[in-house]
């Protein structure tokens, strides 16, 4: 049943009580008998060969059960990699299997794993492993890797070098006004507070269970089954809660294989909770970017050309392309000509991966800063510049965006923020001694659709259980899907139980790309349709039913819990009555996995606008964000309270990106110097002001029957630009290299 309200109910999290009492069990918290503990040894060079390893001291240390190295690790039957394209079969970013040979490709690479009875024993024994290397000269920065650089055409199915018209004439036209600037972003690391972790337990040689912190239980199941030649149903992946992920738990990473290998070699279940340091090297990061943006516009602000040339880092253990331009400049504005270039420089640094809005996040940052610069060149208000280039149609596909309400987002945001009181001149607004800056930027993120299936069981007592192997990373999936199940099935919210996080359930895709709500929601919708049909079939055969002998196709849910004739709703029957009269305790259906239909008449994209205020001491210039208003147009918002939290979360992470976050590396060894939460600065509570979130628009039923386009990522897009633009407005200084730390404003 279509729900046409944009805002769903403001429910509290259905899993809230478990989380606030400490009873929610995260992956490594399951109590598994005889479980041993693992601690890693990692490479301290970036490139070379291990010439010798001395594990004797470690092996003889108390409690040690096994020391795995490339010399003795049981190798998986499937060599490596795979799954990159066929996402339903799992995702590998680092394709090299751990301990598969003596080669080192980056600092921090696993070169041994110590398994011991206790954590203390394993950690100590790992410190006793001695390693000799024959090092080679590593490629540690992009400038050094030019010869090895590549311009990839595709990133999976995505054209990463898209083009429309010819940008060069406009860029060379001196009558037009322009901006040509380079923006750079550092390596950023996801750093969910739960470090990745896994417990692997074999039952004989043919059955494997893992409790694993993952965004993709089915993907992990599929890869592990292939890797070890096991039947799919003999690999179970369990993950009822994920302590944050932001992308770093989406692919299968080496530590997961290591734990499985170690459990096999040691003959006991093995728990491997990654140390925080290894979260900076072995589970991916956002690649550093350098982006050159060139804009040409008429004096009225109409864009004639956008050129977006990006340079990003890759690695030698797999492929990663951060599609900065394709996901920002090729989508956001109606420009006569657009050109995007993407070059990847492989480095002997741990491999990057997707991190919250990969591509969009750095790409939108660069473009939205450039547009702000253009607004000063044009002496136009930054909002006006964006309105002048509003794209009703997708600039490359030429089809209209569905349910796009970006203009409304600008308007509501400007109004709530008080934007009209802004003095357009930089370095003019003050609060006492503090410089005050107001900046804004557009947010955008595409609506992704994947495939999923859901199983719905309706009981004669009125309860319903709905299952899908999807995930709750903190996104609110438990609550949103309980809500959607309640609406779609027509069963009261309190009587619905939604279960996820187990590979036993029907397929759920990776919890990435902000796809889950729409994708799994659609599967629930389909399951609900099937359930209603199954009930209708019982009813039409039931002489006692008012629907007896009606045509099944004429029956639909006319009210929650009630089937009736579409044309004569007075003829109706209760779900539970139908079941009871049929003598059934329950009825269960499972929706089919179907490739999502592609609507070629529309483009589906979410939009938003951030307005932010910063205050900066002129003498000791640390930037403090003091106010944010964010307005989002993302179709239907399933659960209002939780969606607001998601947007706030994106904004907070974007403030970190703007002001604090950077993984820095030692120029000699290539090791990260700050792989910890003391010196990799994620925002603290004191860094974050009140964040005022609003939603505008309408449900996007052209996209899916839920009308929702997803909200996990859009919040982080654009906010770093809004902050950087506010810093410029406050100080007159344009910092084009993130993060904007105090030293850059001296």
């Amino acid at each position, binding site marked *: 049943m279509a729900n046409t309200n944009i805002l769903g109910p403001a429910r509290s999290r259905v899993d809230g009580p478990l989380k606030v009492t400490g009873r929610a069990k995260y992956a490594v918290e399951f109590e598994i008998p005889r479980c041993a503990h693992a601690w890693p040894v990692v490479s301290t060079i970036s490139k070379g060969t291990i010439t010798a390893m001395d594990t004797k001291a470690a092996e003889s240390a108390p409690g040690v059960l096994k020391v795995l190295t490339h010399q003795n690790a049981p190798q998986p039957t499937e060599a490596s990699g795979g799954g990159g394209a066929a996402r339903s079969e799992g995702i590998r970013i680092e394709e090299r299997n751990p301990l598969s040979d003596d080669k080192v490709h980056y600092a921090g690479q696993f070169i041994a794993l110590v398994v011991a009875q206790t954590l203390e024993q394993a950690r100590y024994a790992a410190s006793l492993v001695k390693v000799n290397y024959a090092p080679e000269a590593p490629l540690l920065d992009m400038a050094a890797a030019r010869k090895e650089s590549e311009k990839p055409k595709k990133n999976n199915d995505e054209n990463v070098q898209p083009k429309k018209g010819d940008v060069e004439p406009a860029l060379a036209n001196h009558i037009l006004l322009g901006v040509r600037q380079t923006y750079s972003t550092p390596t950023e690391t996801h750093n969910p507070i739960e470090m990745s972790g896994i417990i692997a337990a074999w039952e004989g040689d043919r059955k494997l269970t893992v409790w694993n912190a993952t965004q993709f239980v089915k993907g992990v199941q599929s890869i592990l089954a292939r890797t070890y030649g096991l039947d799919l149903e003999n690999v179970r992946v369990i993950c009822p809660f994920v302590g944050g992920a932001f992308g770093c738990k989406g692919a299968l990473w080496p530590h997961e294989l290591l734990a499985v290998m170690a459990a096999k070699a040691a003959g006991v279940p093995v728990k491997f909770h990654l140390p925080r340091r290894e979260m900076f090297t072995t589970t991916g990061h956002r690649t550093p970017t350098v982006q050159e943006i060139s804009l040409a516009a008429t004096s009225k602000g109409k864009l004639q050309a956008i050129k977006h040339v990006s340079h990003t880092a890759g690695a030698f253990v797999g492929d990663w392309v951060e599609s900065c331009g394709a996901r920002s400049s090729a989508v956001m504005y109606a420009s006569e000509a657009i050109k995007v270039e993407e070059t990847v420089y492989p480095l002997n640094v741990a491999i990057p991966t997707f991190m919250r809005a990969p591509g969009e996040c750095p790409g939108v940052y660069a473009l939205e800063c450039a547009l702000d610069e253009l607004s000063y060149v044009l002496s136009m208000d930054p909002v006006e510049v964006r309105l002048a280039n509003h794209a009703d149609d997708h600039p490359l596909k030429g089809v209209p965006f569905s349910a796009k309400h970006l203009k409304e987002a600008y308007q509501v945001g400007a109004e709530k923020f008080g934007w009209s009181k802004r003095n357009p001149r930089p370095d003019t607004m003050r609060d006492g001694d503090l410089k005050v800056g107001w900046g804004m930027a557009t947010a955008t993120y595409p609506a992704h659709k994947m495939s999923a299936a859901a199983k719905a069981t309706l009981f004669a007592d009125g309860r319903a259980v709905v299952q899908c192997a999807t995930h709750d990373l903190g996104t609110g999936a438990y609550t949103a899907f309980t809500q959607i199940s309640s609406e779609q099935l027509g069963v009261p919210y309190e009587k619905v139980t939604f279960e996820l996080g187990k590979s036993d359930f029907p397929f759920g895709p990776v919890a990435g790309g902000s796809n889950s709500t729409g994708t799994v929601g659609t599967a629930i919708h389909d399951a609900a349709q099937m359930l209603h049909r199954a009930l209708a079939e019982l009813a039409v055969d039931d002489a006692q039913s008012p629907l007896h002998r009606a045509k099944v196709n004429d029956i639909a849910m006319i009210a929650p819990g009630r089937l009736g004739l579409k044309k004569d709703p007075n003829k109706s029957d209760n779900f539970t009555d139908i079941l009871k009269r049929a003598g059934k305790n329950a009825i269960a259906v499972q929706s089919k996995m179907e490739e999502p239909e592609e609507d070629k008449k529309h483009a589906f994209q979410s939009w938003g606008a951030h307005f932010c205020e910063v205050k900066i001491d002129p003498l*000791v210039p640390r930037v403090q964000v003091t106010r944010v208003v964010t307005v989002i147009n993302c179709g239907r918002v399933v659960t209002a309270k939780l969606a607001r939290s998601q947007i706030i979360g994106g904004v907070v992470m974007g403030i970190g990106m703007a002001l604090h976050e950077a993984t820095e590396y030692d120029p000699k060894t290539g*090791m990260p110097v700050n792989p910890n939460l003391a010196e990799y600065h994620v925002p603290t509570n004191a860094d974050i002001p009140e964040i005022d979130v609003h939603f505008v628009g309408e449900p996007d039923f052209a996209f899916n029957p839920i009308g929702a386009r997803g909200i996990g990522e859009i919040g982080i897009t654009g906010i770093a630009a809004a902050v950087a633009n506010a810093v410029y407005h406050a100080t007159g200084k344009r910092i084009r290299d993130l993060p904007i730390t*105090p030293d850059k404003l001296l």
Partner: protein
Amino acid sequence: MNPFTYSRAADWQGAVHDVAADPSAKFLGGGTNLIDLMKMGVEKPDRLIDINRLPLAQVEEMPGSAGIRIGALVRNSDLAEHPLVTSRYPVLSEALLSGASPQLRNLATTAGNLLQRTRCYYFYDPAFPMCNKRQPGSGCGALEGYNRIHAILGQSEQCIATHPSDMCVAMAALDAVVRVQGPKGERTIPFADFHRLPGDTPGVETNLQPNELITAVDLPAIPFATRSHYLKVRDRASYAFALVSVAAALELEGGNIKSARVALGGVAHKPWRATKTEQALIGKKADPETFRAAAEAELAAAKGYKYNSFKIELARRAIIQALSTVAKMA
């Protein structure tokens, strides 16, 4: 973390005796730095002697003076909010509260904070091969490495690490005296002599002997310290080590500076008492020009590296800002 034996000291005499008898033994106080370094494999004591139950957790007035005596085991959080500190030495309270987090301050002790070790990346993680502090003769990884958080004053070619404490910066400004007990009895160490510059032996960070136990820190009476302030500049709003910090106190007389106490954090291997700044302030008018000149006086000798040269300008500004703040105090 290496194996160790654990024992709880019954009294300070026993604790000192036990440590004197075992060169690889260490005292366990709050543990916030020691346990961390043991997990990292930097500290590897064979034996921990837990001194947490010793009766050294009082803050008291010093007999016969307006100074105070701070027990070695007074927790940072208790010290920060102790009325004797907030009323007489606000700079110390502010410094403590700008450090770490409330949880860590509940554990961390006064003596432990004195002995806090540097956050230099190359020291803190033994995966980095070069650190003269950790492994004498191995070289300094920071010198040509990523040295954004490193020293600009008093460093040597052997070591450019900084002292990470906030509390100590305030204590340096306040002319604190460290009281220690050793096998030969009690002695006192003026604060300026407690921490060392790296020189050729960066691994030796203080003049405390391995068999000595800090029992207290004395703060002398400095009546004008009521007019004092701690300014900490860091990358985020809270829970971060200082890029640069300034502890400052001024005694003013008719708009002129009669006495001054200034110390800097985040710039050197030890809490840096800015004596040149102080000298340049005495007798001058308390105005931005004076403050600027006083900052210059100290920083003329500063030397930056590839990634930390900004600290010279940042320190200059921070000194001016801190002194201006103090001058404006009623």
